[in-house]
């Protein structure tokens, strides 16, 4: 099917992009990678009157180290993340997750910022941003603000981004030497939407877990952290007994939502399976 007619403008700067958004409001959509937007337009599930192309906005580009944080620009593509040395060194969880996103041709255009701004419950980057304590850098007509990942995803497909705001970049603490991670995703076929997924990160100190982050995706309306399981694990050493108890805790605390892939009960079961795999892998 062909998209309905729309106008198109390519913003030359962040200020121009924000001004255009303010001017057109809900009638405009931003286009970066367009891998979700254009499919939606082709199906006429959305008919904006104008697309604002932000791919030339330099403030949204690049991966670089800033102090003790790694800054990932909103326009960075999934492929760029997959092949970046900086990511491999400072946020290896993302390198492990990237190949799970759709297929290569989509990864070549799809962007970090696009995935976060849509906040699809089955997407990889929102969960990874939770697991890594990412901070979202947002710009609007009244200036810039920062929001931590755990306050960014508030409901199904709903983030704290206002209509006239643009996600500029994310800042992620550089991976420390005592940090390990695990990325788990179950999907019926490679590239399908996840049935259940987990982005996990642990920092240890003398064999005991100091920090534990367990961010599940495709289990509920938003990426969801197993905070009780996290709190239980912190301060202890990982062994098989602890893993079992953590799995039970996670299954109890997370209210799963069925979707077209699986029922609530199956999701609950599978999230425990993934947690066991992840903790086993991260066990020293």
């Amino acid at each position: 099917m062909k998209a309905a007619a729309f106008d198109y403008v390519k913003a030359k700067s962040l200020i121009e992009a924000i001004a255009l958004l303010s001017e057109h409001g809900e009638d405009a959509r931003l286009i970066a990678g367009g891998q979700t937007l254009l499919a939606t337009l082709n199906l006429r599930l959305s008919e904006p009157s104008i697309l604002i192309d932000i791919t030339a906005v330099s403030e949204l580009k690049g991966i670089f180290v800033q102090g003790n944080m790694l800054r990932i620009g909103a326009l960075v593509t999934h492929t760029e993340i997959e092949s970046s040395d900086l990511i491999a060194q400072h946020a290896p969880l993302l390198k492990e997750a990237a190949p799970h996103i759709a297929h290569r041709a989509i990864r070549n255009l799809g962007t970090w910022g696009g995935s976060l701004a849509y906040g699809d419950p089955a997407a990889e980057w929102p969960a990874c941003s939770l697991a890594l304590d990412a901070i979202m850098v947002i710009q609007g007509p009244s200036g810039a603000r920062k929001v931590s990942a755990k306050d960014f995803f508030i409901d199904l497909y709903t983030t704290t981004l206002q209509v006239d705001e643009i996600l500029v970049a994310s800042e992620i603490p550089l991976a420390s030497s005592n940090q390990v991670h695990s990325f788990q995703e179950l999907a019926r076929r490679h590239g399908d939407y996840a049935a259940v997924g987990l982005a996990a990160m642990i920092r240890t100190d003398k064999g005991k877990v100091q920090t534990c982050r367990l961010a599940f995706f495709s289990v509920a309306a938003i990426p969801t952290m197993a905070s009780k399981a996290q709190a239980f694990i912190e301060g202890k050493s990982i062994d098989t007994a602890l893993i079992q108890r953590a799995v039970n805790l996670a299954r109890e605390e997370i209210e799963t939502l069925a979707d077209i892939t699986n029922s609530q009960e199956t999701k609950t079961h599978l999230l425990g399976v993934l947690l066991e795999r992840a903790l086993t892998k991260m066990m020293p």
Partner: protein
Amino acid sequence: MELNGEQLIAAPVSRVWLGLNDVSILHASIPGCEEIERISDEEVRAKVMFKIGPVRARFAGKLILSDIVPDVSCSMAFEGTGGAAGFAKGKARVELIGTESGTLVRYSTEASIGGKLGQIGGRLISASAKKIADDFFLAFAKELGGELITLSDTKVEDKKEE
């Protein structure tokens, strides 16, 4: 798809009943409602813009009420078309129960979504329906001047859609 739930609103039963039948209150409560018009005692027509993720689909639909027992319960049948996006059809039953802290609104809905929205959006139809219902009751309670005491127990079940 089945959507069943209960919401407790801090307002008396008669006010909740009036609210559910007042098109201006419904207009303010239904997320994305652009137009709403009462055609008769039993029929209401509306245009609603559904916004879920990347989807923006304008649905034109009608609601037909039946088995009306004032201040107690009613049934409704609804259908809407979203143009190229697809169509929705279903029925619902709403019951109002007076309690100490306010009115318990108990609802059960069965709906089917067809067309593109059903195929593509079908993945998250349950989560979307739950969000719409939650957003509706939050706004509705505010319109009544009462508080939504609990957004609880909304159970959604996905049935196989053709």
